[in-house]
């Protein structure tokens, strides 16, 4: 059983951090410039987030577009939670098969540094929603 209650819970937490990243006056323009589309397929609970950084849109579940994204990533929702709390080493997670990635590695490497300053913001989202349990679950 994963740490998120259901897909809605994933969208409220993980989805929210993407929305805040796009809206952020400092990070937003950088993600827009990178102009990537990324589709995240999460397991446990099964959920899908599609982020169009160029247009500044985040789509969830049934609402995700059919267009093939530049990058596809697959992982447990728990591991996404750990990633956003700065507790998941991506190289090791890929080596262990916990994270699967398809698409341009250089594009991915361009985006990764933008995530780091958002770890604290994600933790704040969780705390604000009374979800300290998710922080504790990340270890």
């Amino acid at each position: 059983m994963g740490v998120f209650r259901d897909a809605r819970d994933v969208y409220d937490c993980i989805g929210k951090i993407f929305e805040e990243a796009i809206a952020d006056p400092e990070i937003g323009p950088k993600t827009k410039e990178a102009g990537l589309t990324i589709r995240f397929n999460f397991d446990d609970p099964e959920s899908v987030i599609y982020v169009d950084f160029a247009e500044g849109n985040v789509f969830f579940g049934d609402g995700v577009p059919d267009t093939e994204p530049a990058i596809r990533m697959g992982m447990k929702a728990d591991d996404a939670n750990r990633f956003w709390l700065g507790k998941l080493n991506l190289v090791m997670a890929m080596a262990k098969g916990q994270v699967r990635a398809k698409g341009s590695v250089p594009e991915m490497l361009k985006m990764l540094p933008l995530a780091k300053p958002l770890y604290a913001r994600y933790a704040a989202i969780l705390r604000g929603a009374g979800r300290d349990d998710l922080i504790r679950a990340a270890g």
Partner: protein
Amino acid sequence: MERAFDDVDISTLGFWELSAEERDARLAVLRKERPVSWQRPAEGMATLPGRDGPGYWAVTHHAGVVTVSRDPETYSSAQGFQLEDVPEEILEAAGSFLGMDHPRHTKLRRLVSVAFSPRRVRALEDSIAARAKKLVDDLLERGEGDFVEVVSKPLPSATFAEMMGVGEEDRERVTGLANDMVAWNDPDVLQGRDGLTLLMETLVGLYAEASALSDRRRAEPADDILTGLVSAEVDGERLTDEEIAAFFVLLSVAANDTTRQTISHGMRALCRFPDQRQLLASDLERHLPGAVEEIIRWATPVMTFRRTATRDTELDGTPISAGEKVVMFYVSANRDETVFADPWRFDITRQAEHVGFGGGGPHFCLGAALARSMLRSIFAELVTRAPTLKLGEPRFLVGNFIQGISAMPYRV
């Protein structure tokens, strides 16, 4: 103030595609006229487009490389160690203590340094000599083939694997990944991939190996480096899987991609300078230590490493500002005519000290004694037992980090 880049440009990939002699013709100008020169950002496939910095200081003379190596407080390793601006995520995953300063560097390096001590290396000498003998048996029996595959690659690969705790069945795979990892600018290895994809793929591959091997060693401890790492503590804490994996990447690259190249370049030098080959064969005991040092100077398998200035300073009269990149060109320092007379002459009787394992200081090559032991063993065998060995044209690795020979035909 915008600073002009040096007229002698050593930053293009085209420069690194030149032959060693052609490259050195340019480096020689810098050594003589501007041993510390300001260069535009290095081209390369490990750099994200648009993410390179303003440029770097190229240190091309012997004295400068020694100074920078021995002053880690002024020249930090913790803000990148490659000539290119490799993304931080990759450096962190691959560099371990190579990309750290004191005190973390000292603590992590100490965990493995005992395995490379002269005493431990002496204890390995018999098995290294036996392995070298067997490889030359094989070389003679085959009569012809690829010198790199038959001799240069297997000796360090097997020695490292045994010390580290990599089983026979995993050896080929680990060596292959380590060899590919340093080939991020080589079109033959890339096969259409970009350099960052290659780096990420090989990193993930080596992490997977490290993770599986660490799990095995936790269950079945043995007398090897990995067992030491999974049980080691630093500041009262066990190393994380990621730290062990980064160690594994660093050591497998350091072990597999240096001695291998030195053996190939050394054999090539002995063939190109038959008088030196003859001299060595005439009195092996007397000349072997000097020959090994000259082979290391000649080969310079690691061509460049970078530091970052931690404060405003001056090197050889050139002011350097805090935060600026400083790149040591070992490949040039080892041809410095003020230290090595007639530097393009291979001379096993030289006395001058090369910077083949770095120029001293805390990052001096941990495996130096081990490498010397392997080189002594293999060249003693090759010189005495394969006197008719001839080499064909090598295929050189393209890149700005490892001076490599990917393949080189031989015949006896």
